[in-house]
């Protein structure tokens, strides 16, 4: 073999994979061909270790308009002639190396995935994970990531309407940056990413540079020891160019001159052009000499693998090129015809007249798949069965609630979301911080969509199956709490090195949990992304499934926010017949970790109970029986009630008896519960609906006043709770203002 181990390492291919390439080509690949294989067979593009598992996920259902994984993003019918297009994607490794540009280009990349379908991007969300907030590295990463999302998202004119952030030591050297974008598509507007024979390949947007080469294979597909060594593989974003590209591409799509459209993301032109040809069963001929560049002396290898941002591949109907070019010119852009799709199944790449690569599309596009087999992690027994620390004195309940509200994982996210424009496009009916999900109206319709993103790495660490299931349940519950019916989800699976049996086990169990939850809740997975090798120096992150959920409200006016709306309303707990603390509810809870310093237990979920609760929430909203609804999750019941009081600016007096272990009752995180408030006149109707839905309910008390009191349990002024909750995040990060 003429190839060196060093060459293979640079593109993260194994010796066995190289031999497979030789068999498929019936010869040794040249340098360019090897680069194409390296990119397309990378974990990032080829899903080598995850594809067999992803087949477990339910991907079809009412309203799903294209099969998951077949296009850039999922498409779901939301009624009134409109579809939503959405996807979540990771940009973890680039963000670890260069947080501002890593996060910024993560936002840019996911927007182009939505744009490629012909949809106007209407909302951004993001899910972030960092190490301990007092670690200087965390502070640097946090500042860079938030500034990058802010800098890119604000400039591009797509509102950033939601997100979540968690701090945990397992992410200290490997932050997670998952970005989600939602687009709206009028029916008939869908653009596929397929290049049928005869169509012209036109490149629009930025010229190619040497940035990002090996981003897919090197950065996203293996662990790395020293972030400095990887810095040149991170791309630099230009949100202004992206904004102009959005307007130009939507105009071109509307003009009818496109066969298809595909963004350039991981592995650049290689993946974009070859995957488009593959989808159409075509081959392609492409001349790298015609690719616009911003640096001189780039080799064909570099042009094919450049991950320069803000580029789109327009697949133009033959003869319609001048129309597309004219629209691009009007927006100050250029279109370069770089090749065409042809009959037959070969990719032929030229540099001017000189052939530089020739390989079958199918060989390139079908990466080998592995199912290495997992092994149950050793730590399970110790952590799942660890005895819980005894409860503190019950007189501590009030001060503990104040403290927990200031936990960096619970405190108000206002210091983050006020740095993101969440209102542009004037569709945001429920804004960040007001509810568990954002609600956006749909123009020309009475309907609205609710969008949320959620995940719980600690729960997945303690039980990956339950963690996966709970992530789906919670993201959908967030949507359901606004009164929307969850329609579909997108998933981003963030895990360690899948070649480690314990990590593979986590991945497999987690996917099974997601699959079962999706089946129980009737929500298919319509798109997604897998990010593996999230570890540094041998330590994997907590397995972290992130779920983005989209739901629909038949009437936007039925929407519910989380804050108590008026004094004198009744406060109810849905999902439990009373306030009873079981020790097991402390499993993986924020209270156990933050106040008692222990991560242990085994989280569970009853998916049937979850489905009943979510159906009930939609029914209650539809009947306008509620004044507010809030998911009961991180921090448990007491935190959820306090948040509803703080968001609404209305206190509450509770008198429900507390049974069992008091701290588990207040702060335990049993799933499938919600805190709602309702006008006294609606009590009978609401309880009847709950009975009909077989969801237990418990009256907790009444809203009103400027304190949160719970008879015999706690009594705190809202001001004290607010100071801790609003100041918690900045205080933990050592930030001012």
């Amino acid at each position, binding site marked *: 073999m003429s190839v060196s181990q060093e060459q293979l390492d640079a593109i993260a291919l194994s010796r066995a994979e190289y031999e497979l390439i030789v068999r498929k080509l019936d010869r040794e690949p040249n340098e360019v061909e090897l680069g194409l294989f390296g990119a397309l067979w990378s974990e990032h593009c080829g899903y080598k270790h995850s594809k067999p598992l992803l087949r477990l996920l339910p991907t079809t259902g009412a309203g799903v308009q294209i099969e998951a994984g077949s296009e850039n993003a999922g498409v779901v019918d939301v009624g009134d002639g409109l579809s939503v297009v959405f996807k979540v994607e990771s940009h973890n490794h680039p963000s670890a190396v260069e947080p501002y540009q890593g996060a910024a280009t993560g936002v840019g990349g996911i927007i182009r995935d939505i744009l490629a379908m012909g949809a106007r991007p209407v909302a951004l969300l993001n899910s972030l994970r960092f190490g301990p907030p007092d670690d200087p590295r965390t502070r640097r990463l946090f500042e860079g990531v938030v500034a990058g999302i802010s800098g890119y998202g*604000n*400039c591009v004119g797509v509102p950033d309407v939601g997100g979540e952030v968690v701090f945990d030591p397992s992410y200290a050297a490997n932050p997670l940056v998952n970005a989600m974008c939602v687009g709206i598509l009028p029916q008939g507007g869908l653009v596929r990413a397929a290049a049928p024979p005869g169509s012209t390949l036109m490149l629009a947007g930025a010229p190619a540079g040497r940035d990002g080469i090996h981003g897919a294979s090197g950065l996203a597909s293996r662990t790395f020891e020293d972030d400095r060594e990887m810095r040149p593989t991170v791309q630099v974003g230009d949100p*202004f*160019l992206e904004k102009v590209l959005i307007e130009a591409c939507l105009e071109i799509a509307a003009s009818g001159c496109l066969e298809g459209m595909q963004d350039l993301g991981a592995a650049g032109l290689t993946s974009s052009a070859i995957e488009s040809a593959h989808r159409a069963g075509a081959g392609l001929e492409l001349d790298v000499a015609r690719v616009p560049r911003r640096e001189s002396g780039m080799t064909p290898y570099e042009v094919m693998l450049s991950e320069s941002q803000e580029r789109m591949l327009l697949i133009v109907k033959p003869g319609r090129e001048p129309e597309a070019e004219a629209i691009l010119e009007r927006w100050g852009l250029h279109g370069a015809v770089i090749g065409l799709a042809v009959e037959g199944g070969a990719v032929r790449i030229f540099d001017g007249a000189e052939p530089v690569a020739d390989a079958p599309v199918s060989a390139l596009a079908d990466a080998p798949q592995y199912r290495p087999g997992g092994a149950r992690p050793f730590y399970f027994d110790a952590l799942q069965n660890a005895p819980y620390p005894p409860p503190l004195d019950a007189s501590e309940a009030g001060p503990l609630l104040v403290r927990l509200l200031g936990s960096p994982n619970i405190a108000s996210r206002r210091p983050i979301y006020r*740095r*993101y*424009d969440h*209102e542009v496009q*004037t569709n945001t009916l429920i804004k960040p911080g007001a509810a568990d999900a954002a609600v956006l109206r749909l123009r020309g319709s009475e309907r609205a969509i609710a969008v949320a993103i959620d995940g719980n790495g600690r729960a997945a660490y303690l039980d990956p199956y339950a963690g996966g299931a709970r992530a789906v349940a919670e993201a959908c519950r967030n949507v359901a709490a606004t009164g929307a019916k969850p329609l579909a989800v997108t998933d981003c699976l963030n895990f360690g090195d899948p070649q480690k049996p314990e990590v593979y086990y986590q991945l497999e169990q987690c996917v099974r949990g997601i699959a079962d939850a999706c089946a129980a809740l009737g929500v298919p997975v319509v798109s997604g992304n897998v990010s593996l090798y999230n570890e540094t120096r041998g330590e994997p992150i907590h397995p972290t499934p992130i779920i983005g959920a989209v739901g629909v409200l038949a009437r936007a006016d039925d929407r519910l926010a989380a804050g108590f709306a008026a004094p004198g309303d009744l406060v109810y707990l849905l999902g439990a017949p009373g306030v009873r603390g079981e020790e097991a509810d402390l499993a993986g809870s924020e209270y156990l970790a933050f106040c008692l310093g222990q991560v242990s237990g085994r989280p569970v979920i009853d998916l049937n109970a979850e489905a009943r609760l979510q159906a009930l929430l939609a029914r209650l909203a539809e009947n306008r029986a509620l004044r507010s609804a809030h998911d009961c999750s991180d921090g448990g019941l007491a935190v959820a009630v306090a948040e509803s009081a703080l968001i609404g600016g209305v206190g509450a007096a509770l008198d429900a008896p507390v049974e069992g272990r008091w701290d588990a009752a207040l702060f335990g995180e049993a799933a499938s519960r919600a805190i709602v408030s309702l006008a006294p006149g609606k009590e009978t109707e609401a309880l009847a609906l709950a009975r009909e839905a077989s969801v237990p309910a418990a009256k907790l008390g009444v809203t009103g006043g400027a304190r949160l009191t719970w008879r015999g349990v706690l009594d705190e002024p809202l001001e004290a709770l607010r100071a801790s909750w609003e100041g918690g995040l900045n205080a933990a990060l050592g930030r001012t203002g």
Partner: protein
Amino acid sequence: MAPRFAIVVFPGTWSDRDWMRALTEVAGAEAEYVFHLERSLRGFDAVILPGGFSYGDYLRPGAIARFSPIMPSIAEFARAGGPVLGSCNGFQVLCEAGLLPGALMRNRHLEFRCQPQLLRVERATPPFTSAAAPGQVISVPISHGDGNYYADDDTLARMEANGQVALRYCGADGLPASGANPNGSRADIAGVTNEAGNVLGLMPHPERVVEEALGGVDGLLFIRSMLAALSGSPAAV
């Protein structure tokens, strides 16, 4: 004839569609987009420069947009007394173009801010604020990273004397308050006019609060005032 608004679109503008909806669907006015490559505003009765990041805010916000082909027509329109309203990036462009005094610098804390903002209407006069009561406190959101208004002492004194300070950040009682100024701007200035009063620049986004569903309708007063001025009838409050 209903008054016609021109909504100027630079590359990177993003409040254009929001203004279109506010002006036409909500307020019932007529409006058209005018691309930055156009050279005429013939047939228009008022001009809106919307928010966004024209030319990516590269160099300085508004610094490149002021050289756009449409800009001489906007200057001419303003000189002739036509109402010109620039919000957010539009305000920045108008300052860069010299149609308004002063400059907008990076927010004092260096961060972007998107949040509701209380404003005191300093002058309730045509053509932009006649629908308000003098001293009225309104809530209009901001969304910017460069809204820190600066003018030198002499300019500021002249502006105050001429009544060119149109809007100020304030507390709920309309008075200056600690924490009420979101960006460090001098004299809590949120919006200013030219000497003649027919060019208004403001950092907040009136087009985002024109329906109760969006959280308020205070932004409508600017549109109603302009419609009243253009039709020659007193503004409905």
